[in-house]
C-alpha cells in the first residue's frame, strides 16, 4: 500500500479523526451521562471506521470495530446502560484502534493481541448488568443517520455504474465472529441489488450440524464503486467467506439465468414491493427438498431504485432532506493537505517581500498611473496575505481535545478526583504554534494533577470539595494568545522551593527571593519538589522544557500561586510566527525589527531624557519613570553612529507589564514583515526571534523583546544586590 496514495492518506486522516471523536464522545458521556444522540454518534463513528478500514483491507481493524459496533448497538437499543467500567473498556478500545492504525502504516493488516481479551471483557460487562432503556435507533432518514465521509464519497466517486455477478458464500463453517447478515445488509450501502438468489442445501434438523454452512448467494448488483469494495465488505463477514465477482456485459447471464445446481434456490423477495409485477410474484414458491429446484423456481424481485450508489456509508439516509442539508453544509469546506497550505503561504510571503521591494522603489517611479497601480496592488497583497494567514489559523480546541482523556487517566491512576474545565476552545492560533504548544500544555496539566490537586481526603480536610478543579482556558489579549492552566490545589510553597534550592546549592540558607523569584526556579533544569519520582513527574524535567518551548515560540510563561488556594500558569504566545507588523530600526549600518505590539512609544530623547548610570546599569527618566536603558549598538556589538544618547532615538518597549527603553540610531519605518526561522535556516541566536527580508533585499534580524526585558531586569536585580554589598 502506497502511503502517499491520496485514498490511503484520506483513510488515516479520517480514521484519526474518527477515533478522536469516539474518545471525545465517551469522555463527554462519562462526565454528563449517556444519551441517545451521543450513543448514535459513537455508533456512526465506529461504523465509518469499520467500513473504511474494511475497504482498505485492514480486516483486523474492521472486525474489531465491528464487534465494538455490536456492543454500541446494544447500548443504543437500550439493551444495557453505559457503565463506568464500560467507558473504561471503550476507551481502551480506542487505544487499541490507535495502535492498530499505527501498526497498519508500517506492517499492513496485522492482528492486535489485545483485541480479543478486550472484546470478551466488554461482552462480560454487558452480560452482567441488565439494561436501562435507551431510545431506539433513529429512522434512516433522520439527521442521526450515518452521513457519508469524504473517503466514502471518494471511493464511490466513479461516475459510471456497472453491473456485476456476485457469488458469495459465508464459508464452509460458521464462526462466532462472522456476521454474514450484517455484511449482506452493508452490501446494500455500496451497491444496488438487482437480483439475488439464495442457494441452500439445508438438511432436516435431525441431520443438521448447526455450525456447517449450507447457504450461499448468487446476485446481480449494480454499483459505481470499485468491486473490490464489495468483496471487502463480504469477505469480512467471516474467516472462510469467499466472494467471486465478475462483470456482466450485454448478454452475459444474469444470476437467475445461471446454470442450476442441485441445491435449492430461493429468489429475493422485495422489501417494499409496490409494482404490479412484483405483486404477481408475491407469494414465492419455495423450492424444498421434495420439490424441483430450478433456476426459475423463485421470482426475482427488484430493489427499489431509490438506493443511491454514490453513498458508501449513508445508504437510504442520503435521500432524506436532512442528509441533503448536511451534504450541502459539508460542501462548504474542503480538506486540504497542510503542506499545500504551507506552500501557498510561503509563496504569498514571497509576494509580500516583492511588494516591499516595489514600495522601496516607489519613489523612483514617475508615472502616476504606475504609482496608483502599485498602491492598489499593495492593498490586495496585504489582503491576500491576511486571508492565507487565516487559513493557517485553527482553533486551540484542536489541541485541547486530547486533554480530557489524559486528565481522566492520570487522575484515576493517582486516585484523585479531578474535573477539567475547558473554555476558549474556539480561540484561533497559527497551526505551527499550536502544534508546538501541545507538549508544554501537557506538562503543565500533568503537574497540576500531580503536584497541585490534593488527594480527596486531604481536600476535604482543608474544607475543599473532594473533586479538584483544573481549568484550561484560551483567550486573546494584548495582541497575543493567552493560555492558562489553573488549579484549585494546594498552591506552590515558596518555603519548599527555598529548601530545595538550598539543597541543590542554588541558594544560600539565608538568601531569600521574592515569590516570583522562587517561581522562576521552577523553570530551571533539574528542579523538582516532588517527593518521589513517578511516571507523571518528579524527575525535574518538564517545566524547563515548558519554558524553553514557549520562548522558542516567541512567548513567555508566568506563574501566580496562593498557598492553599491553587496555582495559575499563563502562557502568552504571538498569534502567529509567520508575519507581523514591525518597526524597522537602524543601528549603525544594520537594520533590526521590533514587533509593533511591544512598542509603547518612540521619541527623540533630547528634551525629556535624564540619563544616569548605576554602575554598569543605565537608566532613563521618561516623564518621571526610570526605565532600564539598553543600547542596541552595544548589545549587538555594532558601531553606532549616534555619538550621544540625545542624538539617537529611544523606543520604550513593554512586555508582561515590564517596560524598558532601547536606544537606536533611527526609525526607518513601519512595515509588515514575513518572519523566517533562524533555527531552521541557520541556528538559534539568543536575543533574536527570527529574521526577515526587507524591501531592499537586505536581511534584518527580529529582536526578541522578551529577551531584552529579561536582560534589563536581570541587570537591574544584580545591580540592586550589589549596592548593599558596596555600601
Amino acid at each position: 500500500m502506497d502511503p502517499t496514495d491520496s485514498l490511503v492518506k484520506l483513510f488515516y486522516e479520517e480514521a484519526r479523526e474518527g477515533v478522536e471523536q469516539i474518545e471525545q464522545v465517551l469522555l463527554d458521556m462519562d462526565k454528563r451521562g449517556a444519551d441517545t444522540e451521543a450513543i448514535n454518534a459513537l455508533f456512526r463513528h465506529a461504523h465509518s471506521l469499520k467500513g473504511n478500514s474494511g475497504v482498505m483491507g485492514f480486516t483486523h481493524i474492521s472486525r474489531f470495530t465491528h464487534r465494538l459496533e455490536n456492543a454500541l448497538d446494544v447500548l443504543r437499543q437500550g439493551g444495557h446502560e453505559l457503565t463506568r467500567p464500560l467507558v473504561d473498556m471503550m476507551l481502551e478500545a480506542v487505544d487499541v484502534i490507535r495502535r492498530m492504525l499505527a501498526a497498519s502504516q508500517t506492517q499492513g493488516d496485522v492482528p492486535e493481541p489485545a483485541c480479543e481479551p478486550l472484546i470478551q471483557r466488554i461482552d462480560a460487562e454487558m452480560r452482567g448488568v441488565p439494561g436501562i432503556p435507551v431510545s431506539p435507533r433513529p429512522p434512516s432518514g433522520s439527521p442521526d443517520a450515518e452521513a457519508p465521509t469524504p473517503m466514502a464519497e471518494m471511493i464511490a466517486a466513479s461516475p459510471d455504474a456497472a453491473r456485476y455477478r456476485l457469488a458469495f458464500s459465508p464459508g464452509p463453517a460458521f464462526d462466532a465472529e462472522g456476521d454474514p447478515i450484517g455484511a449482506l445488509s452493508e452490501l446494500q450501502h455500496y451497491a444496488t441489488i438487482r437480483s439475488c438468489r439464495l442457494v441452500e442445501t439445508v438438511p432436516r434438523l435431525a441431520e443438521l450440524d448447526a455450525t456447517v454452512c449450507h447457504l450461499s448467494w448468487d446476485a446481480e448488483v449494480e454499483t459505481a464503486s470499485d468491486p473490490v469494495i464489495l468483496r471487502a465488505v463480504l469477505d469480512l463477514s467471516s474467516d472462510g467467506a469467499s466472494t467471486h465477482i465478475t462483470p456482466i456485459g450485454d448478454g452475459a447471464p444474469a444470476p437467475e439465468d445461471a446454470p442450476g445446481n442441485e441445491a435449492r434456490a430461493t429468489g429475493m423477495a422485495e422489501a417494499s414491493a409496490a409494482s404490479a409485477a412484483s405483486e404477481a410474484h408475491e407469494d414465492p414458491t419455495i423450492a424444498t427438498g421434495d420439490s424441483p429446484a430450478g433456476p426459475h423456481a423463485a421470482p426475482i424481485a427488484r430493489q427499489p431504485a431509490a438506493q443511491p450508489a454514490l453513498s458508501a456509508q449513508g445508504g437510504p439516509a442520503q435521500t432524506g432532506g436532512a442528509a441533503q442539508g448536511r451534504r450541502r453544509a459539508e460542501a462548504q469546506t474542503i480538506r486540504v493537505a497542510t503542506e499545500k497550505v504551507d506552500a501557498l503561504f510561503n509563496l504569498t510571503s514571497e509576494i509580500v517581500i516583492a511588494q516591499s521591494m516595489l514600495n522601496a522603489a516607489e519613489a523612483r517611479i514617475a508615472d502616476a498611473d504606475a504609482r496608483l497601480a502599485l498602491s492598489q496592488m499593495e492593498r490586495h497583497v496585504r489582503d491576500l496575505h491576511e486571508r492565507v494567514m487565516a487559513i493557517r489559523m485553527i482553533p486551540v480546541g484542536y489541541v485541547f481535545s486530547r486533554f480530557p482523556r489524559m486528565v481522566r487517566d492520570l487522575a484515576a491512576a493517582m486516585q484523585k478526583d479531578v474535573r477539567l474545565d475547558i473554555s476558549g476552545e474556539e480561540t484561533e492560533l497559527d497551526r505551527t504554534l499550536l502544534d508546538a504548544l501541545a507538549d508544554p500544555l501537557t506538562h503543565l496539566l500533568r503537574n497540576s494533577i500531580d503536584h497541585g490537586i490534593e488527594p480527596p481526603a486531604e481536600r476535604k480536610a482543608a474544607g475543599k470539595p473532594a473533586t479538584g478543579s483544573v481549568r484550561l482556558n484560551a483567550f486573546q489579549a494584548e495582541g497575543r494568545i493567552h493560555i492558562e492552566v489553573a488549579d484549585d490545589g494546594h498552591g506552590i510553597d515558596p518555603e519548599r522551593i527555598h529548601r530545595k534550592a538550598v539543597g541543590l546549592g542554588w541558594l544560600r540558607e539565608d538568601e531569600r527571593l521574592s515569590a516570583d523569584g522562587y517561581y522562576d526556579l521552577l523553570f530551571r533544569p533539574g528542579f523538582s519538589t516532588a517527593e518521589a519520582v513517578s511516571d507523571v513527574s518528579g524527575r525535574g524535567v518538564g517545566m524547563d522544557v515548558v519554558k524553553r518551548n514557549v520562548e522558542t515560540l516567541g512567548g513567555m510563561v508566568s506563574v501566580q500561586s496562593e498557598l492553599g488556594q491553587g496555582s495559575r500558569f499563563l502562557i502568552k504566545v504571538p498569534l502567529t510566527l509567520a508575519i507581523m507588523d514591525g518597526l524597522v530600526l537602524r543601528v549603525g549600518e544594520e537594520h533590526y525589527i521590533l514587533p509593533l505590539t511591544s512598542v509603547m512609544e518612540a521619541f527623540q530623547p533630547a528634551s525629556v531624557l535624564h540619563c544616569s548610570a548605576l554602575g554598569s546599569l543605565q537608566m532613563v527618566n521618561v516623564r518621571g519613570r526610570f526605565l532600564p536603558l539598553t543600547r542596541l549598538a552595544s548589545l549587538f556589538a555594532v558601531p553606532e553612529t549616534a555619538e550621544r544618547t540625545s542624538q539617537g532615538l529611544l523606543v520604550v518597549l513593554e512586555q508582561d507589564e515590564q517596560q524598558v527603553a532601547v536606544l537606536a540610531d533611527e526609525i526607518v519605518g513601519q512595515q509588515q514583515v514575513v518572519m523566517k526561522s533562524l533555527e531552521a535556516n541557520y541556528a538559534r541566536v539568543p536575543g533574536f526571534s527570527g529574521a526577515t527580508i526587507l524591501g531592499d533585499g537586505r536581511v534584518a534580524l527580529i529582536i526578541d523583546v522578551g529577551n531584552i526585558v529579561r536582560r534589563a531586569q536581570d541587570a537591574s536585580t544584580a545591580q540592586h544586590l550589589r549596592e548593599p554589598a558596596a555600601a
Partner: protein
Amino acid sequence: MPQIKVDRSSRGLTVRVAGEPAFGELDAFVSDLRPLAMEGCNVSLVWTQTERIHIAFLQALMSLRRSVEAAGGTFALSVGSDALRATLGAFGLADALGLETERKRGRRAA
C-alpha cells in the same frame, strides 16, 4: 440465551423467541428446536426484539421448517424487527424461512 416459550393451542405450537442469541448458544438452541420438529405439527415462531442474528440460527430454523413440513405440519415465522425483516427479505432468507410479511398477513386477514 434467548428466551424460548412454547404455547400450545388447537392451531398448533407458537414459539416465541426473545433476545439476541450468542453464537455459543447455537447448539442449545438447536437442541431446543429438535422436539418441535419431532411433533410434526403446526409451528409458528415469533422472534422479537432482535435486529442482529447470526445466520447459523436462521439456518437452523430453515432446517426446522424443512423437518416440520416434511412431517405434514406447517411452519411460520414472524420477526419483530423491521430492519432484520427487510434484510431477510432482500436476500431470499425471508422466503426460505417462510417469514410472514405485512402483505401476506394483510391478505390472509382479508
